[in-house]
């Protein structure tokens, strides 16, 4: 942390260990204090190796630090209270527009492939470059992922939809217009439900439903790279890549829920293979509309998506992470409240957000708004979508994440929600597939009653997420279902449940397989001599007696005062004394009770 700071800070500011640029605002107080410390005579770089604080009288400093921390806490509390007060007074309304790159082989209006990794400007057809005389050729296959998405978002698929041209000049838009579906989109009136496990704000309680106004098909733009002062490089490979734009109703009222919405849309789109990449790779981008009004005041003059009485909205363009969505809304909300509270008026304008920033910035005002001059595209025929196609796709759609979570927390698997959610989300469902494989194998090999079945789901969840997951995290490796195969993990769990190995052995074997041991589990257990050979009754008695000898007083306490909890200490002793992995706690406890209590 310090080194990058040093590079940025001039020598004069090097009075403290902390660089002001690296500190959040709350710590400024602390910083000012530190600056009172006299500057030592040796060069600043060396000062970093010794602590300047040590050379000062430590007592008042510590006291001061404590006080400062207190002040910071108090200030935070104050701000929380202020925020709560402002939340009580002002109502935030947010609408979201998400652009998602569809998982298609070709572009929307040409047969050019969508592969991203080719040479710049290699995947382009004449129409993609807007050559004179070229015409669009709608690629029907691109409709399939779009339809899957719209169905998964619970939309009404429109039997007839049309394409329009949206005009604006920019070098990433070769035709001077984008083909989109403005007047008649292919899907309308959808919704998604957000639950508390999706991370919605506490105000939204257990569940909130966000309406989706429409979903439209449209073209992506080219990639441009700026080389100031006067060079722009353009790569048209991305141009006309099919996108869907998902437009919500203005029904979101907290920043956290907006972020949860975007996150959930991404996971839904991924679960039905409508998209290939998420926000982290630029496959998904969000625009946010934010407006503010006083609670209970529905006299606002503005109407969005058929919902009236709202305040003037501003639009924040091109947010590329869930955190950016949340942070930008918070910043814009605070800005609008500040403007309104100081008697100002919100202007309808387009604003931008830079990651790590605390304020949105104005991009262009109303007077600079582009009139897109929407016009029906005369060359692209209307899109006619048959009911049969829609129902076929609906029937073959993979189970939605919410339904998967319901299934996992249900009686079939009995997983806690904290385990069910990551299973569904991790690696686009690959972890879930693996988990289900392991459970299926175990169910085949074990003949269990339904209660045992329920615990099987939970136990397996623990092994897949926490034991195997822990090894992955430690190794810093991505998920690989072949590293420890489902068969192997099932064998380990099976052996454990049959009491043929102990828990410690099971973990040890998992780690061995994870590190590349390719032997089958049974062979490995045999060869490493890991199978639990139960001790004979005599051996247990011998161990128990040895333990009792070590602490006769405690035996007396157990006998006289019935302090049964203390039996555990003797169990521990027995396990420590016995051969590792052979002493079973339950049996040890049984023998101890017999010897000590005579029962």
């Amino acid at each position, binding site marked *: 942390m310090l080194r990058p700071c040093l590079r940025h800070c001039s020598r004069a500011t090097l009075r403290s260990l902390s660089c002001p640029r690296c500190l959040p605002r709350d710590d400024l107080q602390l910083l000012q204090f530190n600056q009172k410390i006299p500057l030592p005579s040796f060069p600043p770089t060396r000062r970093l190796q010794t602590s300047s604080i040590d050379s000062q009288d430590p007592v008042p400093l510590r006291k001061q630090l404590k006080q400062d921390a207190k002040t910071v806490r108090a200030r935070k509390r104050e701000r929380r209270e202020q925020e709560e007060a402002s939340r009580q007074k002002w109502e935030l309304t947010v609408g979201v527009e998400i652009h998602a790159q569809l998982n298609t082989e070709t572009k929307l209006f040409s047969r050019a492939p969508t592969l991203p990794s080719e040479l710049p400007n290699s995947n382009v057809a004449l129409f993609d470059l807007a*050559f004179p*005389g070229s015409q669009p*050729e709608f690629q029907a296959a691109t409709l399939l992922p779009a339809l899957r998405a719209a169905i998964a978002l619970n939309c009404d698929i429109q039997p007839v939809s049309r394409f329009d041209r949206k*005009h604006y000049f920019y*070098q990433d838009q070769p035709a001077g217009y984008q083909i989109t579906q403005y007047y008649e989109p292919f899907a309308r009136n959808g919704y998604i439900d957000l639950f508390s496990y999706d991370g919605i704000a506490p105000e939204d309680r257990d569940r909130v439903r966000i309406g989706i106004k429409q979903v439209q098909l449209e073209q992506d733009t080219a990639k441009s790279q700026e080389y100031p002062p006067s060079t722009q490089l353009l790569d048209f490979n991305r141009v006309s890549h099919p996108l869907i734009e998902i437009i919500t109703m203005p029904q979101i009222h907290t920043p956290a829920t907006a972020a949860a919405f975007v996150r959930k849309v991404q996971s839904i789109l991924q679960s039905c293979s409508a998209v290939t990449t998420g926000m982290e790779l630029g496959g998904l981008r969000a625009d946010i509309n934010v407006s503010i009004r006083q609670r209970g005041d529905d006299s606002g003059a503005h109407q969005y998506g058929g919902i009236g009485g709202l305040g003037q909205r501003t639009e924040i363009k091109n947010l590329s992470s869930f955190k950016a969505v949340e942070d930008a809304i918070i910043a814009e909300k605070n800005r609008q409240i500040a403007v309104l509270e100081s008697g100002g008026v919100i202007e309808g304008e387009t604003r931008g957000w830079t990651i790590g920033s605390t304020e949105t910035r104005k991009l262009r005002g109303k007077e600079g708004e582009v009139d897109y*001059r929407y016009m029906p595209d*005369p060359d692209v*025929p209307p899109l006619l979508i048959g009911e049969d196609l829609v129902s076929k796709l609906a029937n073959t759609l993979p189970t939605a994440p919410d339904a998967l979570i319901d299934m996992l927390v249900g009686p079939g698997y009995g997983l806690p929600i904290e385990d069910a959610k990551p299973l569904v989300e991790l690696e686009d469902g690959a972890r879930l597939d693996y988990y289900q494989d392991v459970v299926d194998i175990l169910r085949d090999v074990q003949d269990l009653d339904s209660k045992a079945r329920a615990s099987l789901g939970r136990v397996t969840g623990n092994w897949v997420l926490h034991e195997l997951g822990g090894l992955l995290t430690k190794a810093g490796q991505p998920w690989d279902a072949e590293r420890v195969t489902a068969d192997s993990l099932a064998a380990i769990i099976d052996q454990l449940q049959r009491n043929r190995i102990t828990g410690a052995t099971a973990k040890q074997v998992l780690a061995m397989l994870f590190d590349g041991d390719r032997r089958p589990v049974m062979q490995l257990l045999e060869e490493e001599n890991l199978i639990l050979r139960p001790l004979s009754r005599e051996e247990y008695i011998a161990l128990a007696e040895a333990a009792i000898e070590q602490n006769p007083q405690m035996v007396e306490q157990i006998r006289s005062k019935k302090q049964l909890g203390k039996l555990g200490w003797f169990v521990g002793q027995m396990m420590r004394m016995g051969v590792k992995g052979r002493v079973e706690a339950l049996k040890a406890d049984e023998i101890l009770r017999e010897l000590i209590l005579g029962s």
Partner: protein
Amino acid sequence: MSLLLEAERYVANQSSHLALNAFITPLPRRSSRWQDQVKHADLRRAQGKQKSRLDGRLIAFKDNICTRDLPTTCASKTLETFTSPFNATVVQQLEDAGAIVAGKTNLDEFGMGSHSIHSRFGPVKSAHCGRDSDNLSAGGSSGGSAVAVATDQCYAALGTDTGGSVRLPAAYTGIVGFKPSYGLLSRWGVVAYANSLDTVGIMAKETSTVRDVFGILNQYDSRDPTSHPPSSRSRISHRLKSTPLRIGVPLEYNISELAPSVRRSWYRSLEYMRQQGHTIQLVSLPMTKSALSAYYILAPAEASSNLAKYDGVRYGTRFEGRDGDGDNKSEGYLYAKTRGEGFGSEVKRRIMLGAFSLSAQAIDNYFIQAQRIRRLVRHDFDAVFRAENPLTAHALDIEHQAREVGVDVLICPTAPSPPPRISELTNANATKSSLDAYVSDVFTVPASLAGLPAISVPVSGRENVYSHDDEDLAGIQIIGQYGDDDLVLNVGELLQGNGL
């Protein structure tokens, strides 16, 4: 005459008529390339193995139709040096039939104009002269193609017809100009002016030649999304026609501004048809007056959109220096210089018109209304024709009675007046404004809005043998129901073939 002799005569005429400015890119006089192609065609003809009736014929192409071997400029500075990487489908079809590209003809920039004077390469001049021996207008926008045909610089020519751009120049130069039903000929490789109206048109001295060319071009092309697939073509074409025909005469076309020579040629045509045993019947097309206004909203709107691609980034002419109009980067409008200098005044006028009529404040009153008028114009036609419109047959409820009294074709003038002198149009203190030029499209625009087949054939408007030459230049237009292209060609041939 051998094909080679004929071709050499055409190419020689291209040189001798250089002053008419019909070609932007003529054929080089001595080039083994076209000569060899024609010689091979002569050989095939001698062996009875002709590829088609057009094998070895020289066909000129309007310079907004893409050719791989010759530049395609659209008569615009912005595409002055542009050569398309591909052939338009219509070019390919004719080459496959053995025809030879006879060069690229002059036009109004991007097809926008009615007199072929708005060209980067200078105005086209008709070979016909007025009384004061001023050259007359060749009509537009396919004026170069028309003059090339009229003065034997090629065997036939292709033009494009958006609101009359093939029929008007045909009428002004005394040749045949045919605009087929929208969606029959491929537009792949035809540079768009207003896609929903643009149609490739055919120009020749004889209707039979037009029919030959039409026969080759009338094919489905999967690359043109507005081209009718074979399934709907079969629905369109098999229609029986009873003779005698019922000829419709639209009342609304008999306007007071009609020039006497034009009215004479109209009467003459109708009289001839009556003599041939056909019935003449008055019909009403009440939307005719609004059609021209609607056209001049819709076509510029589409043009403003279609021409947005000319930014000089990927192809075309780019102008030196910063391409914004302000010193400050954020204040300047992108491409202001390239587009400002690349387009001529008429193109800029129509882009402005179109951008306005599509703007949020104006679209409801202009573009949307014009689209409504367009539907009503189509309805007008459907109401007078005996045949149902195969595209809207199920959607419209025109009374059965109308069917029984309906007409087979409409006969009317192509333009309300004979061609004006070019000097009247181009002089600094020109008496004719661009609005006057728009008015010359009043009779051709309705068929364009409805997508109907229409042909203009020359019918003399001369009063007597002493009348001046330019009075002889009148075009009579035959309009048919959608898909009745053959009928329109047949009636055109009847009128044209009788020395009227």
